[in-house]
């Protein structure tokens, strides 16, 4: 649905050049929720703004539903933008218009007949559950309600894709969850492709099918969220995952305990498992087959979008010669192993 190839953006700032995006390529499939995660300044904001040409790329092509956005003239670009919805961190609602008229705004821009437009606004108010707020001005709404208006507004012209620019970053965790749920519902009901950027791994975990990790103007990893969670390929991805998974482990447990036997070795590992694969028999197998003891330091089961995702941090104690085989045994049983 969205194809980005060789996208590069260079800003000229005060005589010097700043490379904001360095040869970025990625593809977003129809109907999926695709997340881009990165720290502030990594380039994700520039990237999402290039997709509707709020930022002009320095090089590269961007196609939305087959149409090359980067070569359109002004008039065609405006028409293309009507089919690309966008929601923002600061909501960006017009204070001069009521909720109803804010949602009407994109329909006015597109030149929809007033009668048709008003009916469409009604439907959208129902969709985001804000019917009783139709006549209210945005100033009177909570953050979550404002973002619902933003979503309704972005959907008004039946967009092919929805761009979400840190849409939940200004919201509290509970409101964030309800907005993410709304986005997931919309994605499912309308089969709408959603591209979101965030710095919050929870957002990726709860909503996204696939994710791209952006660091220092480059995409460092792309993959489906589950496999990146269980097997992050880069330090950047790892540190993002650690922001929501590993932080509960106290620092002193991360250092192997004193064993008191020179023939024994100790290894700290993190084992993760996806879906229904069970951890318990595998670990007892370790003891039986390799005489390796497993000390469970931390464990949890989380949900990545709709799939259970488990995590165990173990201290393995046993014969150094058998340790490698033991790890292979765990891997053969469907566990992702990371030696800490």
């Amino acid at each position, binding site marked *: 649905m969205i194809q980005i190839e060789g996208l590069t953006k260079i800003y000229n700032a005060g005589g010097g050049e700043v490379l904001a995006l360095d040869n970025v390529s990625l593809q977003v499939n129809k109907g999926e929720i695709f997340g881009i995660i990165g720290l502030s300044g990594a380039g994700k904001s520039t990237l999402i703004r290039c997709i*509707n040409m*709020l930022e002009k790329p320095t090089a590269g092509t961007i196609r939305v539903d087959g149409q090359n956005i980067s070569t359109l003239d002004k008039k065609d*670009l*405006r*028409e*293309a*933008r*009507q089919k*690309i919805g*966008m929601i*923002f961190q*600061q909501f*960006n609602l*017009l*204070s*001069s*218009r009521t909720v109803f008229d804010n949602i009407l*705004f*994109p329909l*006015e*821009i*597109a030149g929809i007949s007033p009668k048709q437009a008003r009916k469409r606004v009604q439907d959208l108010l129902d969709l985001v559950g804000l019917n009783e707020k139709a006549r209210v*001005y945005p*100033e*009177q709404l909570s953050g979550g309600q404002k973002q619902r208006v933003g979503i309704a*507004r972005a959907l008004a*012209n039946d967009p092919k894709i929805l*761009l979400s620019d840190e849409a939940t970053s200004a919201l509290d965790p509970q409101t964030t969850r309800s907005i993410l749920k709304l986005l997931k519902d919309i994605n499912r009901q309308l089969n709408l492709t959603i591209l979101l950027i965030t710095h919050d791994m929870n957002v990726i975990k709860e909503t996204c099918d696939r994710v791209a990790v952006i660091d220092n103007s480059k995409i460092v990893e792309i993959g489906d969220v589950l496999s990146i969670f269980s097997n992050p390929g880069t330090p950047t991805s790892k540190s993002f995952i650690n922001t929501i998974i590993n932080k509960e482990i106290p620092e002193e447990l991360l250092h192997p305990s004193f064993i008191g036997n020179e023939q024994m070795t100790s290894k700290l590992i993190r084992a993760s498992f996806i879906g229904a694969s069970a951890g318990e028999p595998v670990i007892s197998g370790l003891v039986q087959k390799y005489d390796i003891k497993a000390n469970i330091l931390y464990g949890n089961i989380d949900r990545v979008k709709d799939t259970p995702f488990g995590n165990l941090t173990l201290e393995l104690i046993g014969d150094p010669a058998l340790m490698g085989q033991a790890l292979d045994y765990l891997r053969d049983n469907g566990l992702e192993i990371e030696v800490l």
Partner: protein
Amino acid sequence: MLEIISGFNLSNISNILAENAWMLDKVTLATWETIYMVAISTAFSYVLGLPLAIILVITDKGHIMENLGLNRTLGSIVNAARSIPFIIFLILLIPLTRIIVGTSIGTVASIVPLTLAAVPFVARLVETSLKEIDWGLIEAALSMGANTWQIITKVLIPEAFPAIILGVAITTINLIGYSAMAGIVGGGGLGTLAYYYGYQRYQTGIMWVTVILLIILVQLIQMLGDKLSNKIIYKRR
């Protein structure tokens, strides 16, 4: 000057007015002339100043119709016009006023220099209000496919409207002051009245009547401006 100020007391004023019924007519007429002059000039200065302000904003760096050449040129003209003292502006514009109105004396003739003096002021005032608008709102409108005209009429002006109204009040009040100055060189209105009768003929009562009327006028306009602006702001809350 001293005898003018010391001549002030209320009974003096009412006596003058009571004894000289013709004076009352003069004051009423002059008040209407001032209101007429200022109202028309304010209206014209916005007809010209508002578009100028919009052009100054949207042609600025990074805005929706960036055109730095045009922006700098217009900006310099506005600055130049604003740096000329009004009294000199009045004299400089006499030939132009003659061409447009046919005469350089009287109420209608005053409208030309008043309007032209206010245009650059209005342009900067409105420009400031428009620049207050969060860029995110313009970006949101752009992302929906809005064209320049739609952004001006549906985002910039409505969002800045309460501030623009306050600006109208400030401009009107400024123009009342300018109109009194224009009055001294024969522009009509309260300024002419105060100068001819109050100053040149030592009728200090008249002087004070005009001053009090000007004060009342300014207060009323500021109050009206505040009220209107607040009404809009409260409605949006």
